[in-house]
């Protein structure tokens, strides 16, 4: 067991209201894809709103009622990457531009949390703000620039991690 888990957040600005025809295909697949995540190796937790099914009830920016948030916790970067890019989730991901606008600023962040911690919406948004303001770093990073958890960097003599942290890009 690892003492640290990986938290993930991403936000997306919808092209149209959630209950409109433009988003219908996205909404129709939510249940299936969330179930796929829940059953994926290394999945720990995902944020849900008061309805209890998904996070589409949250509006993380009170000035932007088209902004959705998605936040979850995983055992490792590898487990999250596998779900995001190597399962049927990719089918949905590859249609992202039908439902969400391309954002010029950073729209996602990864960070390490103590196992058992559950991030809040505010905490997750602060991590995205960190990437926006300072670029990827140990407190908030991206798939392309991953950082190891603190415990793993300290225990340099420990067993090799199951997560490949590339030293070069």
């Amino acid at each position, binding site marked *: 067991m690892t003492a640290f888990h990986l938290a993930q957040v991403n936000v997306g600005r919808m092209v149209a209201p959630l209950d409109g025809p433009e988003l219908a295909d996205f909404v129709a697949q939510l249940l299936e894809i969330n179930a796929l995540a829940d059953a994926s190796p290394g999945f720990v937790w995902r944020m849900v709103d008061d309805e209890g099914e998904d996070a589409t009830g949250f509006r993380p920016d009170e000035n932007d009622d088209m902004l959705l948030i998605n936040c979850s916790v995983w055992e490792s970067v590898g487990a999250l*990457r*596998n779900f*995001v*890019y*190597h*399962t*049927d989730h*990719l*089918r949905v*991901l*590859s*249609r*992202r*531009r*039908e439902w969400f*606008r*391309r954002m010029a600023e950073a729209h996602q962040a990864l960070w390490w949390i103590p196992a058992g911690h559950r991030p809040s919406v505010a905490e997750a948004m602060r991590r995205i703000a960190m990437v926006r303001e300072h670029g990827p770093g140990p407190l908030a990073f991206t*798939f*392309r620039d991953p950082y190891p958890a603190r415990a793993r960097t300290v225990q340099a003599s420990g067993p090799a991690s199951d997560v490949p942290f590339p030293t070069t890009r």
Partner: protein
Amino acid sequence: MRRRLYRHVAAAPGEVGRDAAAEAVGISRSLAAFHLDKLVEAGLLAVSFRRLSGRAGPGAGRPAKVYRRAEGEHVLSVPPRSYDAVSRLLAEVVENAGLDRELQAAAKAAGAAHPDAVAGDLVEVLRARGYQPFWDGETLRLNNCPFHALAEEFPALICGMNLALLQGLAPDPWSPAMEPCPGGCCVAISKNKGR
């Protein structure tokens, strides 16, 4: 002969022993061993040791040398060209412009226009495209990702493009599905069973 040995090992889903490689190419074991080790020296194949008998402990015999495709990529171009730098730049621009759908439409059309795909020889199409297909029961798995480095850097964009390309190359009744092959392509293809 060395090329045939390389092709056999590189396209194999797992590791290949000397006996199996020799048999596949139709040469003696010692000749196969000589050429396989030359391919390892050249960095094209990687080697490890494994007991093929399934026995362990004393008396199980010496572990056999087994070969697999090496991790590194080799590109030969005469005269020098650097399409990888161009593709990286183009991918970045396409990603930043949010042109996923345009890219997928072009990929699907390119797949559908492939002359061999029109003729219906899917395995040959996939082989020619570098996917190194192999049959796993009734499913075609792809032992190689032709876009590996780019897919690592722009996964949503490139894997989405690849899925669209394969949908073009393998039309109905074939059905490409997300079933990653370790070290290979994330897509597997099987016959549509009324899904």
